[in-house]
């Protein structure tokens, strides 16, 4: 009798574990913050976006915020990272801690000389692939102008972005863009081409009033 009971319990547990899946319904968001030059002045907007994302993410989701600086392909550039607990109350606590970490960073941030967007994207892909959530989103808060220091190789590296959704946020126009707007459109087209060539999807969201669009499935 005891054996039968054990067998039944084991079968039920096996069935439940087979049916239960957490990753396919979870979402992973990796946000890149451009800290080069004068773009640091825009970081209060980035804070708003981070808070919005925090409010929208659910238990089980993952979120990381990293900075883009001279060389961004490094774990050290990740400012804060979290995978929210299954219990909503603990997840809320984690969100509060996350926000505090971001506030501290924004208060003490120093501008960097160069902008390694490709390195940041590679790091984002690595992080999200490791977490393997159901939906992978990379948010890039930048003017999308890549400036690499001498010796950094990025141009020839293809991006592997199958299943990734890349959203460029608050892509501000530079002074040179005002002189020749084609620079702006060419820049965006370049990044679109790179992301889509890697198998990912590309979007631009400049109107921060429409952040809800980030979470529409």
């Amino acid at each position: 009798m005891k054996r039968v009971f054990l067998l039944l319990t084991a079968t039920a547990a096996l069935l439940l574990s087979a049916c239960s899946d957490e990753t396919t319904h979870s979402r992973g968001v990796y946000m890149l913050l451009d800290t080069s030059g004068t773009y640091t002045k825009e970081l209060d907007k980035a804070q708003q976006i981070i808070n919005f994302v925090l409010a929208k993410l659910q238990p089980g989701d993952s979120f990381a915020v990293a900075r883009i600086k001279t060389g961004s392909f490094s774990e050290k550039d990740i400012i804060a990272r979290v995978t929210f607990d299954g219990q909503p109350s603990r997840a809320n606590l984690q969100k509060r801690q996350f926000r505090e970490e971001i506030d501290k960073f924004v208060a003490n941030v120093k501008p960097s000389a160069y902008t390694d967007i490709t390195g940041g994207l590679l790091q984002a892909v690595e992080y999200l692939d490791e977490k393997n959530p159901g939906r992978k989103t990379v948010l890039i808060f930048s003017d999308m102008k890549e400036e690499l220091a001498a010796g950094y190789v990025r141009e020839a590296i293809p991006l592997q972005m199958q299943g990734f959704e890349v959203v460029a946020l608050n892509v501000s126009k530079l002074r040179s863009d005002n002189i020749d707007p084609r620079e702006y459109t060419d820049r965006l087209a370049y990044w679109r081409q790179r992301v889509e060539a890697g198998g990912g999807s590309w979007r631009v969201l400049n109107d921060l009033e429409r952040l809800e669009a980030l979470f529409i499935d």
Partner: protein
Amino acid sequence: MSFADIFLLIPASPLLSGLIWLVVAVGLLYLARPAAHLAIAAASRLLHHACKLAARSVMLAEQRLKQRNNEVLLAAGREAAERIIEREFERIDASVRRDLAEYPALQRQMSEAITRLEQDYHDSSEVPPEPPAWAKVVDAVAKIAPREPVVGEILQDIHDSMVRAQRAAIEQYRNDNSKRHRILSRMMPLWRRVAQVLGEMDKRVNRLLERSTAIDRHMASYEDILNRSPRAERMLSSSSLTQFFIAGFVLTIAIGGAVINFHLIARPMQEMVGGSSYIMGYKAANIAALVIILVEVAMGLFLMESLRITRLFPVIAALDDRLRVRMIWVAFAFLLALASIESGLAFMREKLSQDDASLVASLVGQGEAGAVAANLWITTAAQMGMGFILPFALVFVAIPLESFIHSSRTVLGLLAQGLLQLLAFLLRLTGNVFRHGGNMLIRLYDLLIFLPLWLEERLRARGKPAAEMAVTDDAVATEGRS
């Protein structure tokens, strides 16, 4: 070789080629006319008969289904009538036990009251005053010596004694009368008591008579059902449909209650089973909340079954009374525990909502305290109350559910009957379409080859007068010879 190559017999003129083909085709059709007519007629007859046969089979199935539905309907009606009659007998039994069990006591009270009345009656009877004995003495003394002064004194003494005795007698008489009046006045409540007891008995007997009238009525309908009368069938069918719609309506309300209940506990269940785990594509917390509600409904069913209010599970109805009572308590204890858990979850839901609101407020820059609303305890208490009450409210789902299940058998049967009738009609219609379609095809066939047919008719008409003339000549020759 393409179709165009075959078609264009004269490459220079497609029209001429077409005409040649048409003539060939019409000629072939004309030659094949008798066989084609026979084939079309046979095919249409075959299809017509097949459809007719199928329609008849469907109608037979419909008849069988109707019979079966009637049997089920009557069986259900018989069972319901038996239950009602059984319940009425139980009531009569209870009434007899309650009312007639007191009958000996009432009878004793009545006897006591009557005995006391009798006693009082005897006590109040008037005793006639005794006649004065002094008259004969006075007469005798007066005869001894009428002129003696001593006699006068004796008579005077006798007179005085008589006056005194009369006074005493009058006093005694008055006292006795007063006592009798007191006894009579004491009899009044006893009479009232007797009248009250008789009235009470009358009421009880009338109640029993009313119950017996109701039983007579139920027995009459029960006999109707047993006799399978059309009236009983009609009544049961109509009652079943009414039950189906009413039970469906109440079940819809109950489902609404269950949905509210679900929303009360789904959010806090995430704290218990985690908000990120899924089972077969559905959130585990939602499934857990649903399971809790379904368990409550199941407990409600068992409770109602054990109380013998519903009869969905014959096993429970057939249980020993002691075991059944235990089951009632067990089901009630489970329900109470689940209701308490739900109440706690509803409280937790409010706390979590507050925490969420506080977090969102802090994220949008309003500060943690900005989201805490005043008089929050009212919603918390309301949610807790609902969480506690709804499981008990769901218990009563068992009653409409039973009605729905029982009546749906009849309704589904009627629907199936209707569908079969429709199918039979369609089959008959198709059969007729085939029959008349065959005739129409034959006419269309003749229409296609109208030219050779017309020629044939003309030739036949021309050949007919010649033949008739030959026959006439033969007749004339015969007459001449004769």
